[in-house]
């Protein structure tokens, strides 16, 4: 972590919480948790409100679909921490490790149902090029997505275009798979609040 305050500048109560997390999970506290708990009124709490609604609020996209979108946006941004973190959550939600790995490795070469495939491609373009136009959206509509599904996918994209940038800017430590598995279990059980 490039800012010491994010690593060790938390209140006594938060440090006690981190100790509890380490004891119960037997894993290090993920840097994303340290970020959202640092001066949580500034960023963590209001951002969690957005992310929980996007990832666990009502939507016809499944939790697995939305976690896959999160991992795909992260992959497009070349954010290793978020790609691994949300691939683990998507794998848990779908109960299918191979599907998620294959999609993230090569979306074009992997069979995927519509309208999820077209939606992922549009989110990839938006993330890579910072914009999309009406024709890009029409492709997703033609693949069977409703306008509300597109709006819901854009909400996921917003959240992870924020979080991925922060992970890379602040230099999140990328732990081993077991730490991400523990994080994924928490996010599947409790969401983002």
């Amino acid at each position, binding site marked *: 972590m490039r800012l010491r305050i994010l690593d060790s500048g938390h209140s006594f109560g938060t440090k006690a919480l981190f100790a509890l997390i380490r004891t119960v999970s037997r894993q290090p506290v993920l840097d994303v948790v340290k970020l959202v708990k640092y001066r949580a009124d500034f960023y963590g709490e209001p951002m969690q409100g957005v992310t929980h609604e996007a990832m666990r609020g009502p939507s*016809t996209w499944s939790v697995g679909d939305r976690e896959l979108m999160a991992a795909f946006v992260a992959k497009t941004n070349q954010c290793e921490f978020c790609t691994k973190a949300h691939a683990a959550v998507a794998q848990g939600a779908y109960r299918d490790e191979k599907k998620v790995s294959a999609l993230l490795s090569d979306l074009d070469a992997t069979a995927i149902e519509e309208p999820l495939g077209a939606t992922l491609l549009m989110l990839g373009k938006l993330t890579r090029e910072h914009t999309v136009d009406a024709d890009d959206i029409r492709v997703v509509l033609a693949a069977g997505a409703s*306008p509300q599904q597109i709006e819901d996918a854009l909400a996921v994209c917003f959240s992870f*275009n924020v979080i991925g940038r922060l992970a890379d800017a602040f230099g999140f430590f990328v732990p081993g798979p077991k730490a991400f598995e523990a994080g994924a279990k928490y996010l599947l059980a409790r969401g983002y609040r």
Partner: protein
Amino acid sequence: MSNIKQARNALTSRILEGEGKASPSDRRGAFNNSGLVEPLGTLVDKVARHAHRITDEDIAATRKLGLSEDQVFEIVVCAAIGQASRQYDAALAALKDATGKE
């Protein structure tokens, strides 16, 4: 259907208009990716365009301006949310164009 409008407005209001250690003008400049002194402008532009290329030196350079870690924290947060907001708003406008609806 998820609706992040209210939560997103609360987030943006908090980081730009709420109490902070960085000045409101620096937070706004970071959000908009414009009008910041160097090397702060370079860091903010990297956050917006290719955050994976940010280095320890980029952060250290902004500290040499006399900014505290808390100020850098806030400015980076504002930069990330600003760029993600522009992407989101552009896509919502494209959706509106494609469907002819608000």
